[in-house]
């Protein structure tokens, strides 16, 4: 299991939230006495691995299993299912119980739903006539701290649920999670939202506050000053571009899953051939913290410099005489050697991908599409990719980007691409195409695109980006400033008003409100983690901003936010760190669900 991130430097006390989650889980386990088998749905297992050590679970007399269609092999006669309240998971629970019944096994069953029990899931158990055999409970895990400045709501399917199926459950979930945060850190006085879902969340949040008010007198000053909610739908361009930060690239090629990446041991120069090894990636790794947000080009240089200076020190050490304190410094540096080798190996591994002509061509094309000047070149490039039967995700990524920047494709081209896709990749992908169309990602052109206006007004393309000494967030995509972060930059600096015209061009309504009866009492020391701020409340207090990406976020965007937050600190929250895989993955498998 991955290493649990250290949260000591978090801008708000995330440790207490995590400890609360740990305690709740342990209580659940304690309530079922004796030896028991804990069956976790695999996705949830990943979230839990960021919350609690397996060893602690084992101390509770737990045998760990993953939930699947296969019957559980265990001698325990007490079984606890810990599952997200997802309809399709109920099928597995039912088949497990039925299997036991058919074998004549008598067991005690507990089902704990995360984060809460739902009528729909219970209905499935009821229809299967298993309801009476099962004790039902809930485990209110609404969010998981991915890192000291990133929270995740662990809703990896929500973008699809929301945009394609119209299932708005995740909006309630997210509002509830924010409300929970408010119970710990006070009512957040400023709310800015853009997008249909975000505005709805703000509305639900207000409702929750009315139904279950937070006693604001208990808290001196709310620790979080502003929450910015942003629909992924507002900016679908950014997640489709290849991320060029160090962390972003690792994700692009090796896929970061819950704060760690799984790679062949050989990549790290370890001897075990063919074995997979997990590398945790979070701010507890000092070197990673330093380089994760930088453009990959720069990272390579920095690593080289560090290696050289280390070598230099080493030669100095062997040739000249050193004082004891100098020796101590050297030894201290040596301690960081494993981290350095690890990242040098990783970076080397990454460059084998980045130097491929196909990747360079793809980057080139992304920029051409964003520039939105040469329709035909883009068209032909994508056409060729399809003909060459390049991986479907690569193709769809460009195609969707192409469609979005053009507000859809002319009917003739739309149908042409669809036909070519079905012919090249198989007819089952009709479902994928249908979903993409429903979500408005790949569609028929119905109106003129206003991408050019948006791009120009918000200065999304920045010429001459110095990736080594960036002065704008555009460095994360080597020249393209992510639209989402540009909007947030405005929202933090001056609110929506100055950019209202552009906001109207983007999908969904926007909203800006003040809530809570909290009066701005001057208190300076309750905020932490903030250096020179661009957003100063009138009395000069530094403010903490919670940014919520409704529908996912990419690592590059987080990097860009960190770049901004070098000025004003923010906590990033997301439904789920959105990566290419998360975006398309659910769609690809849609017809099987």
């Amino acid at each position, binding site marked *: 299991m991955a290493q649990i991130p250290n949260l000591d430097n978090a801008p708000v006390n995330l440790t207490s939230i995590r400890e609360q989650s740990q305690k709740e889980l342990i209580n659940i386990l304690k309530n079922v006495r004796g030896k028991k088998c804990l069956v976790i749905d695999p996705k949830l297992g990943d979230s839990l691995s960021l919350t609690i050590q397996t060893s602690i679970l084992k101390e509770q007399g737990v045998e760990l299993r993953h939930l699947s269609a296969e019957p559980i092999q265990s001698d325990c006669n007490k079984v606890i299912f810990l599952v997200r309240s997802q309809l399709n998971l109920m099928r597995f629970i039912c088949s497990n119980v039925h299997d036991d019944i058919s074998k004549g096994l008598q067991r005690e069953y507990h089902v704990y739903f995360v984060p809460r029990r739902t009528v729909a899931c219970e*209905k499935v158990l009821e229809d299967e006539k298993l309801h009476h055999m099962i004790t039902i409970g809930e485990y209110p895990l609404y969010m998981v701290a991915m890192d000291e400045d990133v929270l995740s709501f662990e809703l990896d399917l929500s973008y699809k649920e929301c945009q394609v199926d119209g299932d708005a459950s995740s909006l309630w979930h997210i509002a509830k999670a924010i409300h929970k945060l408010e119970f710990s850190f006070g009512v957040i006085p400023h709310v800015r939202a853009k997008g249909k879902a975000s505005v709805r969340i703000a509305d639900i949040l207000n409702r929750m506050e009315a139904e279950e008010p937070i006693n604001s007198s208990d808290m001196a000053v709310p620790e979080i000053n502003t929450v910015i909610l942003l629909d992924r739908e507002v900016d679908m361009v950014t997640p489709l571009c290849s991320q060029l930060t160090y962390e972003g690239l690792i994700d692009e090629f090796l896929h970061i899953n819950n704060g760690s990446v799984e790679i062949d041991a050989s990549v790290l120069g370890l001897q075990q051939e063919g074995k997979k090894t997990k590398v945790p990636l979070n701010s507890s790794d000092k070197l990673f913290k330093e380089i994760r947000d930088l453009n990959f080009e720069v990272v390579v240089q920095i690593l080289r410099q560090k290696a050289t200076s280390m070598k230099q020190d080493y030669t100095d050490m062997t040739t000249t005489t050193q004082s004891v304190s100098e020796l101590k410094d050297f030894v201290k540096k040596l301690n960081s050697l494993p981290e350095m080798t690890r990242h040098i190996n990783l970076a080397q591994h990454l460059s084998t991908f980045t130097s491929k002509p196909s990747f360079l061509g793809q980057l080139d094309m992304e920029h051409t599409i964003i520039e939105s000047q040469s329709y035909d070149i883009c068209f032909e490039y994508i056409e060729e990719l399809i003909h060459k039967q390049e991986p479907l995700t690569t193709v769809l990524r460009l195609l969707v980007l192409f469609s979005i920047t053009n507000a859809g494709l002319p009917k003739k081209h739309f149908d042409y691409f669809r036909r070519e896709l079905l012919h090249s990749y198989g007819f089952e992908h009709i479902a994928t195409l249908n979903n993409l169309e429903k979500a408005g990602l790949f569609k028929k052109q119905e109106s003129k695109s206003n991408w050019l206006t948006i791009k120009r007004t918000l200065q999304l393309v920045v010429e001459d980006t110095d990736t080594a000494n960036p002065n704008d967030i555009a460095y994360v995509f080597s020249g393209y400033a992510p639209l989402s972060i540009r909007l947030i930059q405005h929202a933090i600096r001056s609110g929506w008003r100055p950019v209202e015209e552009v906001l109207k061009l983007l999908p969904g309504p926007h909203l800006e409100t003040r809530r809570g009866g909290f009066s701005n009492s001057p208190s300076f020391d309750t905020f932490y983690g903030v250096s020179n701020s661009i957003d100063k409340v009138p009395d000069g207090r530094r403010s903490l901003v919670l940014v919520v990406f409704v529908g996912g976020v990419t690592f590059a965007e987080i990097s860009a936010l960190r770049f901004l937050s070098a000025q004003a600190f923010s906590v990033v929250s997301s439904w789920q760190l959105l990566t290419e895989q998360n975006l398309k993955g659910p769609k690809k498998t849609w017809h099987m669900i």
Partner: protein
Amino acid sequence: MANVSVAAEWQLLYNRYYRKPELYPMRWKHVDLARNKIAAAPFGGPLAVIRDDSKIVQLHGESALRKLRLFSSSGHLLADTVWRNPGGRLIGMSWTDDHTLVCVVQDGTVYRYDVHARLIEPNLSLGKECFESNVADCAFWGNGVVCITESNQLFCIADFKNPNAVKLADPGIVEPPRCMAVIEPQYTVSGNVEVLLGVGDGGEEEDAAVIAVEEDGVQRLGGEMLRGPLQKMVVSRDGKWLASFTHDGRLLVTTSDLTGVIIERECESALPPEQLAWCGMDAVLLYWDDMLLMMGPDGEPVTYLYDEPIILIPECDGVRILSNASMEFLQRVPDSTVSIFTIGSTSPAALLYDALDHFDRRSAKADENLRLIRSSLPEAVEACVDAAGHEFDVSRQRTLLRAASYGQAFCSNFHRDRIQEMCKILRVLNAVRSFEIGIPLSIQQYKLLTPSVLIGRLINAHQHLLALRISEYLGMNQEVVIMHWACAKITASLAIPDATLLEILLDKLKVCKGISYAAVAAHADKNGRRKLAALLVEHEPRSSKQVPLLLSIGEEDTALMKATECGDTDLVYLVLFHIWQKRQPLEFFGTIQARQLARDLFITYARCYKHEFLKDFFLSTGQLQDVAFLLWKESWELEKNPMASKGSPLHGPRIKLIEKAQNLFAETKEHTFESKAAEEHAKLLRLQHELEVTTKQAIFVDSSISDTIRTCIVLGNHRAALKVKTEFKVSEKRWYWLKVFALATIKDWAALEKFSKEKKPPIGYRPFVEACIEADEKGEAIKYIPKLADPREKAESYARIGMAKEAADAAAQSKDGELLGRLKLTFAQNAAASSIFDTLRDRLSFQGAS
């Protein structure tokens, strides 16, 4: 002096004083304790009175039917009802902790009444065995009862809140026991009730014993130590001690497990007392006809004479004595009171009390007194406050508090809140002690009972106003009171029209923020006032409470609207399933079709678990394309099914499904593309099936058109590949890519070259170059690179196969400086190649500059 008269009413027992103030003269008329069975609740609770049917009494022109009457402790009639319950004689009657009157009759039936004398349904039973052999006696405690039948078997209901009758172990006795007592479950080791039975006949000392019976075992206790059978037993409040009266007229106090005798005292009578009771923890009361005897651990017993029958009601700090005419409270005089009022007391508290008296009379002696006790003033004040708390007499409370307050003025370090706190408590106590309310709580009882239980009892007795005032005064949550009031009001106001009643209710409900309107509405609904319920639930702010109630009162559409509004999809599902179950499918479809969120959620659920039903829905709403998508998906699942093995005629059903989907798509104009695609898919499956039959290789089905073409070429079946191409109108462009890559896969370089010469390729020679480079065949690649039209492509291709010189030349031809730079990087390791690029680039920039 006043002090003398106070102490004059005390009696000394051993070294302690006892007093017996009258709490109330009883207000009732014509109640003779001798004729009646009485049940009195502790903590100043109500009294239940019913004519004793085991006694022969003369009826003075009253009805032969018995009446159950409930009184407050002051004798104020609360309610009455006619006793018509079958089941034989009333054996025992007692109040439970939550003021339910429990009556056990001969056949083991248990009737329960609330404080308003309403029978609580259903009646309980102690079981069939009790029914068959009559109940002879029973003993109660807090919330439970134990009965002994005529066949000497014991049955128990441990908790009336969860009434299950349990048979205890067989005590194994033939003769009925002489007496019975219980130790409450909370004081026993096992956590279950323990019943003590006094057995043995007078003659044989060895036979005499106490039998302790539990659920799973019987124990014989005592034996020799008792020296004969016990006639009467009573367990102390804390379950530790047992007071008993022996056959030869001794009072025995032992531990409750009968391992040691604490006190043994001779009484003058060998006749067992009618009543035996503990007075607090340090004295035992014995009552014979007209004489009440109080015995302490030592010294002369105190005797009280009564010329009328009395009932002893044990409390935690004393005993209430009920007679026909009055209610008294026999209590040990608290130490603080003793220190103030004992005759000749010179304790600081007494001097302080005296000082106030002098002060009131403007005597200088007040000051003198104060000076005498200066150092111990705080404890004097404390004693006055404490004594005030124990007083029932309001004027004496006041005097004591004034004394305290007077003393407090002279001492700086006294905790000031003490007096205020005591005043608060006394106000509450005096309020509930009033005649009308009739709850004579002592301060110790009040503290043990807790204010919230007291409020609970008040609202239970419908004293809502007082309860509300008290909870307001003590700063407690008023919600409980208001809520109970609202419900009681609804029950009692059948005649008031909905709108008026609503207004009355809202007026009070708004007092409490966060009160559950839904709970009140639910009560209204239970009382058959559905409309009122609907009006009330409107005001509920919590959707999670509101929606379920709306459903239960049949307001499904409003429920659906509210659930959708609040954004909690779980509530929407709740409504959805409710409507689904209640309505006909078509009507159900109609309802949800109009509501987007509900519809989408239904579809999500149905997609997982109600596939066929979902089809019905789409058909009913005319969403034919969605049905088509479902069918198409089904066709896919059929494939995954292992039963549909490849190459078998089972492809038939799949194709049929797809064709069905095709037809459905064709119904709407917008879906011609899908229709066409479905048609092609069906055609492809047929073709692939044929191919599998002819090639005898099961590798075609479910690959894409492009893959099928590739496979054909790889297998060398060019005719089949061409057939697929024409059949599906594959474009020349795609054809070239596919064929080139397929040929490269099997490394058929000759065929590739032949193909390149067939005609001028429609997409140039790039595919050929790429295929060769990817296969790492430099020699082959060189054949095609020169044919590339774009010099830049040429340069890069050369570069990729490591031909620096040629790459540089091509790049120079393209006059692209950036490209040159990039290529140079590629060749960085190779110094010679690098210099070529530098020269070329210099020449380029020079050109640019000129």
